[in-house]
């Protein structure tokens, strides 16, 4: 008894790891006891399993109900403190058993134990009822929601979706298939992707062209003698007007350059004549391996004048 008082004064006033409140408000004055052997769940002088050397509880495990009894004689040995008595499944018989075992215990404790037994029986009955209803299909099984877990999984799904880059892989796959030719000849392409793909193809070709150019120019130390290199460059810097003579009617109102050998010969002739040439022709220096046609230009017809000094003078006068 002396010990119990000491224990209770230490536990209640100082620290007990089983003591909790539900809310965080300071006005929450009821303390609960999280000790699994507590009869009531409250933190009281009479219902503290640690501060009472003569104590009894009822616990239920898998539907079997046991009476746990604690006495002073075994208080020093935590392993053997609780004497476990199996109670009858019959409610009435269990009550009689309680009477018998807790005869010399404080009346309060016996009363609490009986209350607990009743509660346990009631919830077991309810559990059985629900289970039967669930099995017969008349009631849905209620499952708890784990907000933390559900939110975590949702978050991960979203991240995984972003990380999978579905659109890109699908696009890649489809383009591959198209390239392979599994779709045969399809003529209806949506405009923007088609143009984009064509530009990409053009870029790769131009890249290979520039690579080839670079390869040609990488011949260091090789002296190349070229006729009238300067004039060629100057002509390039001027507004590139296409040589009218080189124009060819390509049909559909489009005029384009003649890509045959004639234009090449023209190119060779024009640098020799130089700037004195009356025709403001820009020698069209073609890129060595241009496969692409020049831009299709629609030309307005103008009268050709013999006297070209005026526009030149006009340019120079600013």
């Amino acid at each position, binding site marked *: 008894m002396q*010990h119990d008082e000491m224990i209770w004064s*230490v536990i209640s006033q100082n*620290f*007990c790891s089983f003591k909790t409140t539900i809310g965080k408000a300071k006005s929450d004055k009821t303390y609960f006891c999280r000790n699994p052997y507590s009869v009531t769940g409250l933190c009281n002088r009479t219902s503290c399993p*640690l501060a009472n050397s003569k104590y009894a509880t009822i616990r239920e495990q898998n539907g079997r109900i046991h009476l746990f009894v604690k006495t002073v004689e075994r208080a*020093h040995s935590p*392993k053997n403190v609780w004497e476990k008595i199996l109670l009858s499944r019959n409610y009435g018989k269990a009550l009689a058993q309680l009477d018998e075992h807790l005869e010399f215990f404080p009346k309060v404790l016996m009363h609490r134990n009986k209350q607990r037994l009743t509660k346990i029986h009631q919830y077991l009955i309810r559990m059985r009822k629900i289970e039967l209803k669930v099995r017969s299909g008349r009631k849905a099984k209620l499952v708890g929601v784990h907000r933390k877990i559900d939110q975590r999984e949702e978050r991960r799904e979203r991240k995984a979706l972003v990380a999978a880059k579905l659109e890109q892989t699908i696009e890649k796959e489809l383009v591959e298939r198209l390239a392979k030719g599994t779709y045969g000849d399809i003529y209806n392409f949506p405009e923007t992707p088609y143009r984009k793909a064509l530009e990409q193809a053009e870029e790769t070709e131009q890249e290979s062209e520039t690579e080839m150019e670079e390869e040609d120019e990488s011949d260091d130390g090789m002296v190349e003698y070229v006729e009238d290199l300067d004039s060629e460059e100057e002509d390039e810097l001027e507004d590139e007007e296409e040589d009218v003579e080189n124009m060819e009617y390509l049909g559909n109102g489009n005029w384009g350059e003649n890509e045959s050998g004639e234009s090449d010969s023209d190119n060779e002739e024009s640098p020799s004549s130089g700037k004195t040439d009356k025709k403001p022709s820009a020698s069209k220096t073609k890129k060595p391996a241009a496969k692409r046609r020049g831009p299709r230009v629609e030309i307005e017809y103008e009268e050709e004048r013999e006297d070209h000094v005026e526009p030149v003078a006009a340019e120079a006068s600013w």
Partner: protein
Amino acid sequence: MSARPLVTVFGLSGEKVGETTLPAVMTAPLRPDIVQFVHTNMNKNHRQAYAVNIRAGKQVVAESWGTGRAVARIPRVGGGGTSRSGQGAYGNMCRGGRMFAPTKTWRKWNKKINISQKRYAVASALAASAVPALVMARGHVIDEVPEIPLVMESSIEASKKTSVAKDILNAVGALADMEKAADSKQVRAGKGKMRNRRYVLRRGPLVIYKANDGVEQAFRNLPGVELCCVDRLNLLQLAPGGHMGRFCIWSQAAFDALETIYGEGGKRIPTAAMTNADIARIINSDEIQSILKAPKAGQKQHAPKRNPLRSLEALEALDPYAAAKRRAQASAEATRASKKAEILAAKRQQAKDKKQYKAAGKAFYEKVSKQGDICANGFTLE
């Protein structure tokens, strides 16, 4: 308390091997207040000094511009050519100024505690470690421990291997507490994690020995397990956090040494102020009850006050009409609830009618305001 109880001594595989008597220290008074006081002060003794740089904020030459310049009178940095010039200096309110009351290293970091107080605290903590309820309340998992205080045979001091140590703990039911500590390892919350105090874990059992023949090495790597020699019992280990009741595992040599350390020839065991502190029992004892005066007769018994806001009967006593009023309220609500559907329907119908009426009026107006031969069809309107 002269006949002190016997304590079983357990062998390394958990079987009973012998008995000893409980040392007198274990019956010392339980004084959580003294333990808390001594603990808080003892805890300050291993602090390291911290302080701001002594020159911080003062390494400028700054003078106040005085009055008349339409600026605050705080000393300002002179010179020019840099954004620092003209800025306030020296004050605790200035950016780059010295702080208010710069912390100094010569602060008193350690606390002096009276020796007798320290000893009292240790004795109290030892006594608490012998009470299973207090050890459980402190949070240790001792459900499988065969006895508190837990004394093992002295050969535990000679254990060399950690695996052997773990088996010993297992045999004696102390592994659960050690595992609780191991599971609780977490990254510390707060800045301590970047100041070399990264992990925190719970405290497990404290192994107390007399002579180290390998115990230290065997047990020290187990998470949560701490070791202590009897001669140098540490309050910070016996009552971590200022809470008494650490789970202690004694070697028999250490346990028996307590008799000599505390007693006539050694440290004083504190005595309680009251030998029997159970006041309730004293009051209800025959000795006291027999000399009490009889209770006064004819005293009015007052029933406990009942709050009228909570109990209807108490309210009735004050306001006789209360029950009737409540009933009227309840019935009114009920009728309102039942009539709700009807009322709603009526209102909706009303709104609908109004709409139709308005629409009809509008249509009429449209028809009437059409331009055309007024009397094309006579004076009638279609």
